[in-house]
């Protein structure tokens, strides 16, 4: 059982083109017709020794789309993401950005290409404050010789930029000088998403964005995702266990099972039962 359905695209000109090919058994999304996807992965294989972690996975992500990835533990969701973002080397396959083949050797390269990733827990340095985390690895330096020659950081500018960003995205952080460890889980996650947006990621990938945080804060993070999408036209990939989040937020969902992609469905014309059925491998009637 393997379900692929075309989704109507958010962008009208694309919608016209793709609406004609909407069939249930369409094996491959006809990317050439559906406007160029911002990200496309073709026939991705990833082996860990003899274990096939990813087996011929192909998917695409359209501009401004929120794509959900669901699947059981060990189904290959995180492996797929890590392969796309250069955290893992793929065994074979092809990755295209805006229709052009790219080599994503490492996470730094991914960020240069505009792919930002928000990880479950490990993305922030808990002992550092929000501005330092926002600029982690890309610190602003002073414009004088101290900055150029000795790498003196410009804390004041970093703080101003942080205040600006948090205001724009409506993220509330009370004390910017405090280590982010003192912030709630939701605020930390918001800082992570904000960081990805600040660095003008064209594609932002969230790995279990709502894990280990309170329900109110989950809603805040999900709303932030929508705001960033709507205001900056960013495309999102969201890995989640939470069907509510996927169905409230995503436009489309792909389902992984045992390293294979077994479903590519439009949220508008699928049901939770169908998606859960694909995740577990139960038959759908």
């Amino acid at each position, binding site marked *: 059982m393997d379900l692929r359905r075309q989704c109507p695209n958010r962008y009208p000109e694309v919608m016209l083109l793709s609406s004609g090919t909407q069939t249930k058994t369409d094996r491959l999304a006809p990317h050439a017709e559906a406007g160029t996807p911002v990200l496309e992965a073709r026939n991705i294989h990833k082996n860990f020794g003899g274990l096939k972690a990813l087996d011929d996975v192909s998917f695409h992500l359209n501009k401004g789309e929120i794509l959900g990835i669901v699947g059981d533990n060990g189904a290959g969701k995180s492996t797929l993401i890590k392969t796309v973002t250069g955290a893992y080397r793929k065994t074979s396959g092809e990755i295209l950005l805006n229709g052009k083949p790219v080599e994503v050797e490492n*996470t730094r390269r991914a960020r240069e290409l505009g792919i930002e990733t928000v990880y479950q827990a490990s993305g922030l340095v808990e002992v550092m404050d929000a501005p330092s985390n926002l600029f982690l*690895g890309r*610190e602003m330096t002073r414009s004088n010789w101290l900055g150029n020659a*000795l790498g003196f950081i410009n804390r004041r500018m970093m703080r101003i930029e942080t205040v600006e960003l948090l205001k724009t995205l409506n993220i509330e952080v009370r004390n910017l000088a405090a280590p982010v460890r003192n912030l709630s889980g939701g605020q930390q996650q918001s800082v992570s998403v904000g960081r990805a947006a600040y660095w003008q990621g064209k594609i932002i990938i969230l790995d279990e964005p709502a894990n280990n945080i309170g329900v109110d804060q989950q809603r805040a993070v999900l709303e932030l995702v929508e705001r960033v999408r709507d205001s900056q036209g960013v495309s999102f990939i969201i890995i989640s266990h939470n069907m509510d989040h996927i169905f409230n937020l995503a436009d489309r969902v792909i389902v992984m099972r045992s390293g294979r992609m077994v479903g590519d469905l439009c949220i508008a014309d699928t049901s939770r039962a169908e998606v859960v059925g694909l995740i577990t491998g139960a038959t759908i009637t």
Partner: protein
Amino acid sequence: MSDANSRDFLMAVRTRLDAAPESALLLSTFSLLLLMILVFSFTADQFFTLAVLRNVLTQTSIYIILGVGLTIVLTSGEIDISIGSIIGLGAMVLAVSVVNMGIPIGFGLIATLLVGVLCGLMNGFLTAVVRVPSIIVTLGALTFFRGLAYLLGGGTALVGFPPFLVWIGSGTVIGVPVPVCLALITVVLGQLFLKSTRTGQHIIAVGGNAEAARLAGINIRFSKILAFVIMGVLSAVASIIMVARLDAAQSVMGAGIELQVLAAVVLGGTSLFGGRGVILGSVLGALILTILQTGLLLSGVVQFWQLVAVGILLIAVVAIRISYEPSEVRP
């Protein structure tokens, strides 16, 4: 009414300090230092004389210089217990090159500093690239460097250094002893490096959360190796001061100093688990240790009790800190 006010005030202070853990640590360490000075001003008559003060500062300067280095290494998430042996090796290189071989003192000093760089490179490479835990690497280096020191200089003291070196040990610059000047420079540079430069921030990030640092594109290997190299150079500086103060060099120099420096740094609030380095705290910690020892001595306490007191103080301070910040405790 006033009770509620003071409670509010205390709560406000607590919130501030929670948000700025390093200031809180500095404040507590500084209070301890003040308390100690207060107590000794009553128990020891000659405690407040200029000679004692000067002696205390000069003596502490070596611990302060080493403390700055160890703070940076601990911040990067590693440890270096080979610093005493780097001092021994550095002293021997200085003595053999200047006294035995007659090389000009300037070159001798450069050679000593280079040895510090090499020792740090070795520790850093084995830790960051070969990935042997730094406690093992530097435990091995501790005997390795000491062995080299003995091979180089033998077991006897080497004497006969030129006047310039003696000036480093006992000279003054506008009334301030040279070792104290060197310590001051080290503290200022160390503080600026760790808190105000990109590389320093990267060291904090690597020690705070190596995975996050890696994902942010920070070069973990470089950061850790650099921390060890800084430690090596500062150990070499300390060895120069030690030789200069004694006007003699011996292979055994610096033996056991790593534990005292570690005690000073931990007293100052630097985390053993990385990510939090309080350089000014290490300065205060070093001052506390020297003042405790000097104060007890001048108060007529037997030397064995001084050792007991230092041990109790160290454990008590860390225990109190942990009870105040449960989130700090990591398995």
